[in-house]
């Protein structure tokens, strides 16, 4: 799960990670009121969406008067912001963050992420703030300092020194930077984060460090013990079809093709998409029905897949495992009664009691349900059906 910048900064503030003062606004009037309340004579108006690259897309503006705050708030609220992370369809801006302007002497980068190979969090820092960190990593990897922190000892002084001296900071800033990084590590561990990025991390002319941006992602499996973070979920940022699927224990991702897929298991679901592609078709979605594959979940799966008007056939590919295939076959037949399935459905069932399942499907004699013998056969039949062959 991801959260907005303003929410990440609320969490940072709790851990004494310095952030500028700011307030979220849902309307132009609220934005103006926030700016007045914050005081000063310079404000930043920032679109709040779950994607990076907002500045380049026109979603971040520096206002030098209350009139400008009003003007920029009017422009940004309600705009569809397109960045390199939103996809070409962009994202609708429904809230903005009004923040006091910062005194920027230098821009750095600081992030914490899981290093899967080392199996511990790694803190990454760079002098190349404001740039896309992946670009820095590819072009000038020597400009990124990485320090893995063994959670059994936690963040120690030497971790901080490796980062601060690695960045070449002057000695009067070393202590301040170490304190900042230590606090950020606590934010990461305490909240079961999967990612924190501060880009840019600003150094003021007085040599202080401030997080003027903040991005946080969380481990979905740990949200149960963080109700405060779960409460920050913004459903308008999530794909409605994916969310609905999630409620029924299904995992769904929409794609651009025309062969719908319903599969048990994430790996086999991806493998099924790959096979459709391999035999000359295009998959319309990823859909993992999980282990149970009951009539109800299969029916819901059909319903979600069929909402996509591009879908011309559906390939149901279930490797039964311990769940008996004859039960699944009956479930599929029942599902076709619950949902009006208007396109050909190719069914491949393998595993325990597969021959009995094939018999059930054959005897049901439903016009648009076609049995397949294996994965390759099913994919070919589904692709042919989508092409109207």
């Amino acid at each position, binding site marked *: 799960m991801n959260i907005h910048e303003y929410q990440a900064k609320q969490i940072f503030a709790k851990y004494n990670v310095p952030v500028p003062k700011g307030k979220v606004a849902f309307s132009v009037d609220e934005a103006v009121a926030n700016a007045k309340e914050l005081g000063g004579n310079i404000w930043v108006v920032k679109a709040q969406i779950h994607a990076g690259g907002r500045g380049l897309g026109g979603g971040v503006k520096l206002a030098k008067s209350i009139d400008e705050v009003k003007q920029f708030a009017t422009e940004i609220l309600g705009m569809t912001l397109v960045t390199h992370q939103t996809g070409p369809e962009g994202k609708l801006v429904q809230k903005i963050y009004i923040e006091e302007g910062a005194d920027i002497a230098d821009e750095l980068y600081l992030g914490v992420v899981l290093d899967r190979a080392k199996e511990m969090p790694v803190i990454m820092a760079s002098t190349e703030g404001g740039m896309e960190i992946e670009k820095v990593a590819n072009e000038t990897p020597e400009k990124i300092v990485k320090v893995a922190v063994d*959670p059994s000892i936690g963040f120690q002084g030497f971790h901080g020194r490796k980062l601060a001296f690695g960045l070449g900071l002057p000695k009067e800033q070393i202590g301040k930077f170490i304190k900042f990084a230590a606090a950020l590590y606590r934010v990461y561990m305490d909240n079961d984060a999967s990612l924190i990025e501060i880009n840019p991390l600003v150094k003021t002319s007085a040599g202080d460090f401030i997080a003027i941006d903040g991005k946080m992602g969380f481990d979905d499996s740990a949200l*149960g013990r963080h109700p405060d973070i779960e409460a920050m979920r913004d459903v308008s940022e999530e794909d409605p079809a994916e969310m609905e699927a999630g409620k029924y224990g299904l995992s769904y991702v929409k794609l651009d093709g025309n062969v719908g897929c319903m599969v048990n298991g994430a790996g086999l679901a991806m493998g099924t*998409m*790959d096979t459709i592609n391999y*035999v000359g078709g295009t998959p319309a979605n990823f859909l993992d029905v999980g282990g149970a594959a009951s009539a109800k979940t299969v029916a819901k799966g059909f319903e979600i897949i069929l909402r996509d008007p591009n879908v011309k056939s559906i390939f149901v590919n279930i490797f039964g495992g311990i769940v008996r295939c004859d039960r699944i076959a009956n479930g599929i037949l029942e599902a076709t009664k619950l949902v009006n399935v208007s396109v050909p459905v190719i069914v491949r069932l393998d595993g325990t009691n597969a021959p009995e399942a094939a018999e059930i499907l054959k005897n049901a004699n439903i016009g648009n349900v076609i049995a397949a013998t294996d994965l390759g056969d099913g994919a070919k039949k589904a692709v042919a059906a989508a092409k109207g062959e």
Partner: protein
Amino acid sequence: MSILVNKNTKVIVQGFTGKEGTFHSEQCIAYGTKILGGVTPNKGGQIHLGLPVFNTVSEAVATTGATVSMIFVPPAFVGDAVMEAADAGIELAVIITEGAPVKDMMMAKAYAVKNNMKTLGPNCPGIITAQECKIGIMPGMIFKKGSVGLISKSGTLTYEGANQVCNVGYGISTAIGIGGDPIIGLSYIQLLKMFQEDSETEAIVMIGEIGGDLEIQAAKYIKENVTKPVVAFIAGQTAPKGKRMGHAGAIISGSAGTAAEKMEALEAAGVAVVKSPAEIGHKVKEVLSK
């Protein structure tokens, strides 16, 4: 011969009396696995499935002499359970539980390594040595005894791969699901080494997926150390960037972790890479009949 487990392996079950634990323990016992008891705190002294229940893993190990634990405890408690197994001297923990917090697994894995306990999973189907010992949730009947070792991140692709190998007239020595989470126990390299050294295994099927770089590391290892033929499939060639595909670890971030990158590395290491899982069986037959 086989790797890690065989017909003499003594097993206990953590989360023995729960719904999943009960169902799958029954299936494992029916397969022939030597399950000698289980652990459920506060239920010590009871008899479940005709076997003793213990309050702690230490007691269970002391009484049964078990060396392997199959873990079914709920996700919030799985880190604790793994550490308890390591503390009690278990040699291999097979973690079936899905949805374990990453931080918990990070701590538990580090503690397991420190105590010389191997782990498999979490969120995996387990391990099976065909017709000898099944520790996990896979359908036993599709694994016919033979000479092909199988390592897979995905559960259902383990079944798909094994089924195809058996359908073309070969069989499985040991098949292992390593799980698709960000932090996992035994991984390709350790298992490839075991299969390379196992006299019963003649070829290896390796099934990977998008995300992370375990397959790239495995490719390097294969190039230098594995002389047995390896057939590989990487799931997710058609997966979009930045979208999590079911498994917590299956996500292409930036330019890293793509299927194309992994397939290229494996091919460069001399591995027979197939583009569809439907080709696994044929390819195994091809490499073994050379």
